[in-house]
């Protein structure tokens, strides 16, 4: 690099007085004979002077008060919407999943799609080296994982699903919800009475494309293949593919923190299209994905996907993945596709339900 270019690079630091005395003197000597650099210094000084004037400005208290009032006014409107949303909550949501055949089917289908997405996270593209690289690679190379998924829709209680994945097998146990909701409490006591740890389970073998759904309340099962729709969903919303598309500037480091003796890195993924959630900070507010990573293992310890489910962006829903245990040993019985003893066919349950004999 020629001397003029070297000196030019130093001009911002020269102007703000950050150079060592030796370097400062060198730049001064250069300036004496270089009109171009003198002009640049003049421009830089003028800019810094102007920035200094801005930094000295303060906000009038009246304007500040007005700004606060505006926030309070909007918040009051938001609170009204929040109350309306709460009123729309189906109070018997949990029971409807358990008791209503069609909803049970939908819930199972939703779990399958979710499972396919999660497993593609684990099974797809081993050894990929995208930006946000080490984390993706560690996830891709994991042999097994178990974690909890919590889903919260608006003001409703959060529902919790336990997920186990080993190799190409996966199990999802819907274990209940969190919160003081009356229905959740009755679900909990009913599960305790029947000594159940989950009320719906789905076991999937991605190698053979076999699926077993279990309804533990009614002791019914449904065995079926992983259909094309679920397979298409996995192709259309492959998590690992979305991770590959994340550019380094989209994985914004927020902070490091200590938690339970571990060093945790927190990243905000600002652009991602995952599970129908388009996280784009330049677009609608609040649609985003946050990933907490154990610095030692480069594996996620928590993932939070936030989304809006209405056009106005007022409803805040989120999926949270946490309590990760990576590469631990999992009981093979968890993934057994054998029909448990005492369980009868799902189709028979439809007949029972239609005659009102399916109540637990």
């Amino acid at each position: 690099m020629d001397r003029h270019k070297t000196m030019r690079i130093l001009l911002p630091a020269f102007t703000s007085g950050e150079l060592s005395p030796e370097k400062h003197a060198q730049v001064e000597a250069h300036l004496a004979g270089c009109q171009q650099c003198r002009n640049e210094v003049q421009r830089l000084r003028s800019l810094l002077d102007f920035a200094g004037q801005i930094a000295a400005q303060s906000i009038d208290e009246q304007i500040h008060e007005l700004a606060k009032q505006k926030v309070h006014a909007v918040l009051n409107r938001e609170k009204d919407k929040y109350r309306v949303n709460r009123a729309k909550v189906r109070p018997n949501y949990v029971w409807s999943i358990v008791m209503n055949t069609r909803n049970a089917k939908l819930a199972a289908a939703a779990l399958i799609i979710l499972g396919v997405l999660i497993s593609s996270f684990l099974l797809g593209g081993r050894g990929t080296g995208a930006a946000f690289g080490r984390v993706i690679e560690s996830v891709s190379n994991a042999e097994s994982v178990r974690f909890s998924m919590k889903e919260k829709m608006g003001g409703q209680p959060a529902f919790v699903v336990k997920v186990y994945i080993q190799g190409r097998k996966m199990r999802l146990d819907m274990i209940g919800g969190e919160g003081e909701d009356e229905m959740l409490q009755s679900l909990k006591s009913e599960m305790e009475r029947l000594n159940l740890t989950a009320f719906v389970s789905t076991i999937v073998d991605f190698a053979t494309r076999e699926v077993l759904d279990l309804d533990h309340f009614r002791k019914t099962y449904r065995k079926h293949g992983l259909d094309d729709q679920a397979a298409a969903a996995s192709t259309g919303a492959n998590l690992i593919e979305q991770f590959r598309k994340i550019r380094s500037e989209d994985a914004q480091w927020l902070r490091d923190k200590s938690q339970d003796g571990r060093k945790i890195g927190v990243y905000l993924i600002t652009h991602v299209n995952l599970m129908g959630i388009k996280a784009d900070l330049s677009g609608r507010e609040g649609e985003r994905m946050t990933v907490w990573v154990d610095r030692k293992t480069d594996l996620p310890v928590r993932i939070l996907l936030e989304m809006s489910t209405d056009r106005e962006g007022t409803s805040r829903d989120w999926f949270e993945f946490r309590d990760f245990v990576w590469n631990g040993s999992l009981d093979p019985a968890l993934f057994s596709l054998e029909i448990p003893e005492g369980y009868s066919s799902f189709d028979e349950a439809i007949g029972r339900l239609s005659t009102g004999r399916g109540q637990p």
Partner: protein
Amino acid sequence: MPDEEFRTFLERYSRKVLTVAARVLGSTTDAQDVHQEVFLAIWRRWDTYDGQTDWGAYLYRTTVRKALELAKRSRSRRSLPVQSQLPTSRQGPDSRLRADELRERLAQSLAKLPRDQAMAFVLSRLEGLGAEEVAQVLGCSPGALKVRLHRATRRLARELNDYLVER
């Protein structure tokens, strides 16, 4: 929704957020929009923040980001400059008008910079934070900050050339 907690939070950080936004945008009207956007977004996610959230750093990043986004969106829209509302200028009407134009152009030029450079310039030069604090807010080393800051300064000086030389 813990109203009281949020109210206290708003009281504590409100002025800072509004000031930062106004310094970036040069318009108290636009700054109020950003101020509202920042606090509304936090209110909506209030129960997802953990106790360890470093609000100071978080608010700096969020406010500057939102202000830059607004500057980008409203590139063609003329706004009421903050300068004209504040009795700070010792210059005559012509130079004040020129300063107002520069103020607006600065916001637009900042919005065109790479985000990390714009953040470095805003926090260091318009907010007047120390290098260590800015590096902490941005999660980079002081060396990296220096590089970003100097690049930003040079680019801005180039972009605003017409307004700076005659000041």
